[in-house]
């Protein structure tokens, strides 16, 4: 499955469109990460726990989008975009969406 955030896949031609595919996941932080973040809030800098949490969530959301595209018979997803939103207390939603296509 080829992913691209451009409208076409560079070097290939789109022969069929299957429509919009999406994948999302909602993740909450656990207490351990919260405590580390609380300490980091004093000196500032990167919150490694949160970075990894969001990266894993993004991978999962992307994987769900790919699975949906595969079920339609597509072999590529173009114009992939991401959205991160803070939903409830301590929970973030990762949303990935794109257009499933067949490329040659």
């Amino acid at each position: 499955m080829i992913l691209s955030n451009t409208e076409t896949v560079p070097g290939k031609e789109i022969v069929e469109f299957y429509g919009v595919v999406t994948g999302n996941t909602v993740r909450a932080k656990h207490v351990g990460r919260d405590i580390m973040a609380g300490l980091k809030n004093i000196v500032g800098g990167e919150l490694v726990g949160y970075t990894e949490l969001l990266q894993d969530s993004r991978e999962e959301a992307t994987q769900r989008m790919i699975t949906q595209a595969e079920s339609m018979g597509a072999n590529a997803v173009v114009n992939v975009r991401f959205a991160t939103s803070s939903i409830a207390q301590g929970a973030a939603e990762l949303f990935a969406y794109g257009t499933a296509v067949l490329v040659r």
Partner: protein
Amino acid sequence: MNFGVPFIILVVAYFVGTILERRHFDDIRRREAEVKNFPVLTFETLPTDWQVGSAGLATGSVVVSLDYFKRVIAGLRALVGGRIKTYEPLLDRARREAMLRMVERAKREGYDAVVNARLETSRLANSRGNGKGTAGVEMLAFGTAITLNKRW
């Protein structure tokens, strides 16, 4: 005596935060020098003499938090308005770090350039306090990594 503890935290935050920030900027500059020759475009149209081999998605992200000292200064700034100069280096670091991670990952996976690079910012809210207050800011850099059949 009662405001001694927050004052100590403030002083610690200032010194440790400044040292960490300077070290991070040095690290960023060194890594940027290493990927100087890797093309990153923010648009889709490719130069006409580029022949694309394969393509894939490249992402890089970082979540940063504000230290206590910066937040106190920003709170004071909020009274009179204007540029909050204490936040600017932090967001600059976060953006450059996210871009570097995207480029380093693309390079590691064997790609030659990144096109249509985008930067997105999201605010993460606190879990206590009903979502008021910011726990961190996430910077996401993503683009399409391509391999080129012609090298220069």
